[in-house]
């Protein structure tokens, strides 16, 4: 049962990546079309509209990606039913916030909530609690938890672009992702 859920979560994650890729490919096409029709379009408001549109278009894929990750990793901690409920509540709060607050703030709160879950999972993995992992040695499990936490941190960081903390958080997320990947790949 746990393996079956894991399988469908991985499928969901892959679907989110395909969705993101499709959005990206469309973005490449539109960027080129706009550049060809007006060489200086980037200095016009059109570029800003394009960026806003692309950010919005990629949002469902990113939310789906983070949602599947938020269930996939912490289900090692508590049952899939509970964690799905928690993620569902977070999603609901996100939708309510989306109505009340600007998109950036709603997203920031959504990603921060998911980050919190990933931090708890990482701590418990380091403490070697009896978590459900499909396979792998302790080092590899810590690596997996760390890289998924770092990916969430990247997204939190996107919501603070322009602030003084942005690059510092980016480097922390980058280092975490690299160390996590190495541990996950070569940790046994």
């Amino acid at each position: 049962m746990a393996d079956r859920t894991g399988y469908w979560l991985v499928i969901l994650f892959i679907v989110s990546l395909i969705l993101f890729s499709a959005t990206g490919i469309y973005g490449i096409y539109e960027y080129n079309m706009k550049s060809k029709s007006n060489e200086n379009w980037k200095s016009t408001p059109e570029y800003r509209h394009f960026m806003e549109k692309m950010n919005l278009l990629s949002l469902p894929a990113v939310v789906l990606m983070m949602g599947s990750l938020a269930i996939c990793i912490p289900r090692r901690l508590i049952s899939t039913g509970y964690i799905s409920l928690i993620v569902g509540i977070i999603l609901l709060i996100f939708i309510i916030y989306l109505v009340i607050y600007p998109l950036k703030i709603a997203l920031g709160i959504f990603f921060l909530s998911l980050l919190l879950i990933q931090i708890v999972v990482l701590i418990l993995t380091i403490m070697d609690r009896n978590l459900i992992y499909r396979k792998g040695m302790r080092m590899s499990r810590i690596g997996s938890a760390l890289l998924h936490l770092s990916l969430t941190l990247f997204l939190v960081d996107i919501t603070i672009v322009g602030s003084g903390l942005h690059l510092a958080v980016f480097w922390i997320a980058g280092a975490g992702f690299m160390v996590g990947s190495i541990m996950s790949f070569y940790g046994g």
Partner: protein
Amino acid sequence: MNIQGYLQIRDSFINGGLIISGFIVTLSLLLLLLTFLSHRRRTLRLHAEMIEKLLIATIMAGFLLIIYFHVGISRNVFISHPGMETVRFYVPPWIETEKLYFWALIISVIRLLSSPVDDLHIAGSRLILASFGILAVVSGSFSNPLPFFHREVMIWGLVRGSTDELQYLAYMVSRARYFYNSVYMWIHPPALFVSYAFLTMSLPGFIGMMFRKKTDDLSLIYRYLRPGYLFLTAGLILGYPWAVEAWRGSWWWDPKITGSLVMWAFYTAILHTMIYRRRLYRFTGITGMVSFIFLVYTYLLTYISTGVHAYG
């Protein structure tokens, strides 16, 4: 700047490159031929192996020649002006027409250090090596070295002594500081090319996965996919602060960057399908093929697309 010295070293590089190019193309064609023929005649395998080693050695010798050219550039091309520090040009050996050569070099190193046992993998990696050998030469690594940099130096030579010289020197100083000599230029592109090389070498494994079920294919993919993915991620991470520093906010959703992210998403998807490889066996193979096609497309975006990376 010693323009005569620069032109002299460029000429000797082109002449030396002519010989190396001839060797690389001949050995690559021979390797292609022997790889196809050795499929039927096993006695030819030893010959193919020998030609392959010779090709690898020649590609490495060619890279040494490129390094010699670049050292020559740093010695002869510099900005020296009263009241300012001398600025030398340390041009990295993986830009402009040398990109594919660097890619081919890393493939050579990987091929030299690895010893696949499966026939399909051996044939596949030899075809990749030979193709990249030819592409590296055809792209103009030796016949048309660093065309944009050369044009900049030539214009510099023309404006020397004129009223435009100071303005042009300011432009060249910024080119040296933010492009050629930038620390990011020395770590971001090579990390990506190393990743491209590893990911290219995983291709025979994905082709195998489409037509057969063999654990050799999976072990080959894992061997190359893991370092390839690590270098790809590192390359993307290292490029970000550079983009923020150099382009401020005018690069979001740039085609090349978006393409790289999509490529990263493809390879992330593969790493996840590999967890359930029994159920997603053929799908993983197909995704691997699509990812490689997208890798090539992302590389070509520099040439076929507009955007901040469209330097050519």
